[in-house]
């Protein structure tokens, strides 16, 4: 057919075949999801009207929004170290070079399950257990850390030079001492950097969780939208934007400090 001397030329047309199948899949998905581009243009005026209803922002609730924003920050501030502590345990248990195979596979399994669950699913479950409120929100955020931080820590520990661990072990130490003096010094800076990043993620996540009842500025936004009080909602949205931007700046600043310090002394 298309081959000469057993050389198959068809391999050079495969990209086209992949693109065609991809396009077909996208079309199928659009059809299934009832995508209607016409609706976008027919309802454009409604969108503009809705935007208009959001302005001007309601300045009478600024005080409430600031207070609720602080609650959101407090939730993230409580949840991040708590989640970090849980992740530390799971991360150490998930590293095959210091953890027995049985415990490691359990830890890895739980971490994977957590990663697969969005925070909101965890929260919906916890609300049943603890009731609507801050506590369920904080626990959901803390548990939400484990999937990311636990996995990153476990992987970082597994990358520690085997010879270093061996040489410390040969001093005649217990496993907990090995963790304290050989494992943690090597992985802690990266872990702290990840933890700070997770704080930023938790601020954003707590806004979303707030809207489903965990409290804070997200809850205020959800309430205002439900009551069709769009000007109040705008104030909440502005508070959220400022909050997220500030937390991003703070996290960037702190992580740069941690990284610079650990690089200087690497």
């Amino acid at each position, binding site marked *: 057919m298309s081959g000469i001397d057993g050389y198959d030329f068809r391999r050079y047309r495969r990209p086209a075949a992949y693109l065609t199948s991809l396009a077909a899949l996208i079309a199928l998905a659009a059809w299934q999801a009832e995508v209607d581009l016409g609706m976008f243009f027919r309802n454009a005026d409604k969108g503009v009207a809705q935007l208009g209803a959001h302005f001007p922002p309601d300045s009478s609730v600024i005080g409430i929004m600031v207070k609720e924003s602080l609650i959101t920050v407090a939730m993230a501030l409580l949840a991040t170290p708590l989640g970090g502590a849980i992740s530390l345990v799971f991360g150490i248990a998930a590293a095959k070079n210091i953890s027995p195979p049985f415990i490691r596979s359990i830890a890895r399994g739980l971490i994977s399950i957590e990663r697969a669950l969005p925070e909101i699913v965890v929260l919906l479950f916890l609300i049943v257990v603890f009731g609507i409120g801050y506590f369920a929100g904080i626990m959901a955020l803390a548990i939400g850390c484990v999937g990311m931080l636990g996995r990153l820590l476990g992987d970082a520990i597994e990358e520690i030079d085997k*010879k270093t661990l*061996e*040489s410390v072990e*040969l*001093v*005649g130490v217990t496993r907990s001492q090995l963790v*304290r*003096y050989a494992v943690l010094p*090597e992985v802690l800076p990266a872990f702290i950097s990840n933890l700070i990043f997770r704080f930023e993620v938790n601020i954003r996540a707590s806004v979303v969780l707030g809207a489903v009842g965990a409290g804070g500025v997200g809850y205020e936004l959800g309430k205002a939208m439900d009551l069709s009080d769009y000007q109040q909602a705008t104030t909440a949205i502005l508070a959220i934007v400022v909050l997220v931007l500030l937390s991003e700046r703070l996290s960037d600043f702190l992580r740069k400090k941690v990284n610079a310090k650990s690089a200087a002394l*690497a």
Partner: protein
Amino acid sequence: MIRIDGLCKKLPDGRSLLNNISFSVKAGEFVGILGGSGAGKSLTLRCVMGLVQPTAGDIIFSRTKASGEEETFCIQNLSERRLREARRDMGVIFQGGNLVKRLTALENVMMGRLGHISPVRSWLYGFTDQEAKEAYEVLKSMKMEDYASRRVGNLSGGEQQRVAIARAIFQKPALYLADEPVSSLDPKNARKVMKLLKPLSKDKPVIGVFHQPHLTAEFCTRVIAIKGGEIVYDGAPDLDAATLAMVYEGELEEVAREPASVAADASSGFAAEEVASLRPGTITP
């Protein structure tokens, strides 16, 4: 004292890596183990450390306890707890040091005593000022006191090796084991390290695996040569050319070439140290 008796190690497929290795080393001896690559030198040492379980044979390690009585360990059949106890009395020095790179030189030295400290204390308190002071004194004896508060990762290979020796000394072991301690060093630093290892053998047995016959001839009191997992020579350190050729076979040429490069490398070794201290952000406090 350490006595190895009929040590054998076979792979599951029946290949023999060590075959009937027997020797004993007492205080005052600095034994250099020589052999081509894959001969089983390091494997023998790893059996002594309890890292590899031998197929047959005894490894008998005895130490004098603080109370003055003699205690004997059979390394090959110890519980994990007893193995830890035995290891506390073995000062191990590896090629490249294998230290914790992010801790300071002094912290790495102090770690030599970690086995004597309860896990609770190591988590909640750490080392006492007295221990820190003693560790500093040992570093000083290695002429490394200026580097005490520098992270080991910033030190050159020769400096790291000296920290590793300091750690082993601080451990106050009953036996020193050195697995290719000078292989990653240039000739000048290799000699420096050999000069530091030699005095350790005054009151404790020292066993080292080496690749350089000229260094073992100069510093060791006895050489054991291993070939294909068997001891082919055990005696005076100054091996004659014929024995060396037998031990190393095809590799002899590379081994023999090394002394000639001493002069050429001596300056470059110094340069490496200089460069390391000039790296940005590594200013000595």
